[in-house]
């Protein structure tokens, strides 16, 4: 019985939250990696683009709520997301037309594009803060828990409860659907294949008649979809605050590089690598050992490798180690 309790404990505090957080990071990381692979620059506006998408989602959610539309037990935001995506894609294409296109055509070095993306970051951040303000917003409605800790205890008769939030399930399911669709698109369709070719060798791709304008446009569209959904899922699960989104850019970068930048599948797994290591290294295992070990051996400290204050520092340290020992990432980047 104690073993099962210990496992449920880990599931409740490590596995489920890490899986949800990892999915949110994974979407962002694929966004970063696609931009890097095809448009060839590190997009420092990632976090703020996600926060822009989330803001539009929230505005639509409020609008639908005021009209009385709802999905019952599911959050209203799910209906708002498609509308937000349309808006977001428009914003992305607008930015590309007025900002990034010029540098792409004049073949500027990647560093210059990265600097330009900092300008976009400033502007996007300002727009978000001017429209919705810098404070914390919750826009979740509907049923909060799929399984409550208390119900689970009653059902199984265990000491430890397992709580699964509906947002966590939604996050994981939506991520899986979205990512499978994306991989199917990249691997099976003609456009997807031409995108990979363009990423692999630009000149060769151009020679074989691939239209760069189309590739770039589709990249921004996919990026808009990923940014909106990734941001909205994070906001549903936790809460929406522009500053947190800006900060999330850092673990997202870490995930993309750990997985091998330019490699969407690596970025997908990288998200989970970062999320799991962050939570595994900062969790206090005292209770876990109390279940497993005989009383005489029970630990008297928290058995915590690092204090939770260092959550971000963990992912950055992993990134630094990966950069030093395997700069192309765990899954060999730069092949889309």
């Amino acid at each position, binding site marked *: 019985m104690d073993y099962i309790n210990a496992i449920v404990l880990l599931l409740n505090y490590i596995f489920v939250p890490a899986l949800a957080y990892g999915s949110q990071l994974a979407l962002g990381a694929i966004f970063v990696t696609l931009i890097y692979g095809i448009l060839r*620059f*590190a997009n420092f506006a990632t976090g703020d683009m996600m926060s822009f998408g989330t803001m539009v989602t929230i505005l639509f959610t409020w609008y639908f709520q005021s009209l009385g539309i709802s999905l019952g037990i599911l959050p209203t935001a799910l209906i708002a997301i498609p509308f937000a995506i349309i808006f977001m894609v428009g914003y992305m294409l607008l930015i590309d037309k007025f*900002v990034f296109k*010029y540098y792409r055509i004049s073949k500027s*070095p*990647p*560093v*210059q594009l*990265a*600097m*330009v993306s*900092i*300008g*976009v*970051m*400033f*502007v*996007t*951040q*300002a*727009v978000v*803060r*001017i429209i919705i*303000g*810098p404070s914390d917003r919750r826009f979740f409605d509907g049923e909060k828990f799929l399984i409550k800790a208390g119900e689970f205890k009653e059902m199984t008769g265990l000491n430890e409860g397992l709580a699964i939030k509906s947002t966590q399930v939604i996050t994981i399911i939506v991520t899986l659907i979205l990512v499978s669709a994306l991989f199917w698109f990249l691997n099976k369709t003609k456009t997807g294949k031409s995108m990979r070719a363009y990423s692999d060798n630009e000149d060769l791709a151009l020679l074989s008649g691939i239209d760069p304008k189309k590739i770039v446009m589709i990249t921004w569209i996919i990026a808009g979809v990923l940014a909106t959904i990734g941001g909205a899922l994070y906001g549903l699960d936790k809460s929406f605050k522009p500053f947190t989104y*800006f900060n999330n850019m*850092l673990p997202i*970068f*870490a995930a993309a*590089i750990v997985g091998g930048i330019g490699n969407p599948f690596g970025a997908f797994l990288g998200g989970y690598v970062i999320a799991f290591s962050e939570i595994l290294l900062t969790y206090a295992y005292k209770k876990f050992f109390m279940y497993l070990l005989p009383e005489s051996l029970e630990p008297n400290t928290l058995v915590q490798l690092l*204090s939770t*204050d*260092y959550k*971000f*520092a963990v992912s*950055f*340290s992993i*990134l*630094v180690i990966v*950069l*030093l*020992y395997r*700069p192309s990432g765990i899954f060999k980047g730069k092949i889309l």
Partner: protein
Amino acid sequence: MRKNLNVIAAYTIMMGLIILVGIFQSWNIALSIFNLCLISAVMTIGANIQWGYAGLINFGIMGYTALGGLAAVLISVDPVQEAWSAGGSNILLSLLLIIGMVLAVRYVLKKYEKSKVRTYIIATIIIAGIIIIRFVSEPGIEAIEEVDPAKTGFLGGFGLPIIFSWIVGALFAGGLAFVIGKVALGLRADYLAIATLLISEIVIAIIKHEDWLTRGVKNVIGLKRPAPYEVNLQQTDWFINLVEKFNSSKLNLIRDLTERQSALNQFVIEGSSIFVKLCYSGLFLIVVIILLILTQKALYSPWGRMMRAIRDNEEAANAMGKNVVKQHLLIFVLGSAIVGIAGAMLVTQDGLFTPGSYRPMRYTFLIWVMVIVGGSGNNFGAILGGFVVWFLWIESAPIGLYLVNLTTAGLADTHFLKVHLIESVPYFRFLMMGIGLLLIMRYRPKGILPEKIEIK
């Protein structure tokens, strides 16, 4: 003279703007803008010699600034004797252990050829070391943090004059840059940017949460000052006389004696804070001028030419026998050390150390905007960037308010749009910075005062 006309013009306009603020808002505001402009200028000099001279991207400016601030605390605060006796020995022991660990790793690196076994040995040393250090330091840290946590709860510093921290801050930042440079400088430009950004976040996390060293988010307030205190000034005779002399024309207009006395008191209070700020301006100006002379000399020296050669074509410079790796490391350390000075200056001016306030927007990206807007590779340009951008950063709120009032003049004061916009005026500064950066990068990619290379 003729060649430098645009430099002189740009600086004259800038000073004119600050003087206008002094006339229309208040001299207090103008001087605090000017002081922070000077500190920003030091930061941009640091960032500029990395990016402008050598083409190295360093997005870790925030980390070096914070380390400079930490130096100010460690140098100027009086030591907390109780904390030292409670946990000092544990901390010193862990420090020795860390040094031992580093030496062990170095020994392994030298002794063995590069192999998997070596990597494993190093990993074992580091992991075992961290566990032992935690065991040694934990009781000490707890004991230290329990010593009067509302006031101290940390080890304190050395109780020296805070000015020394400007040098120590440079050493701290340079030391960190040396470590980072050793491990990260081989990376490609955009990887280097991301790596330095993340490492600076780690530095901030440590400063924020190691309360025994920095008091963490509880902040350290009331640091010593290199300038006199306002309260003391207000009671000093020579200062009161000075203020009286300055304002004699205004004071003479007032006939009534008591009224005249109260007016004088008002002038003294105002004057004291201006006087203190002027003291800081003087100190900062000395630093900026010294750094400017040194960096100008360096730029036109053979060393500066070599740096530009490395920046423009690494392979060619390497083929000519220049040690690119070594020079990159050198300039990385130098630039970061200068940023460290700025960090210490900033804390000196504020008189308080707030680890929670170090955010990448303000301390990394804004500095980069300054360098790019001003003109990378040109010291005068970088300094001007610091002035222009900081001025706009502060004054964009009033400008934004004015613009909002102008555009919504047709709406009633209670209209929701107008109220909302007026509430969000503080965020117009991000908008201005972003648009400014984008416009400069598009239409004047070399900055306001571009780099000029004279070939003699």
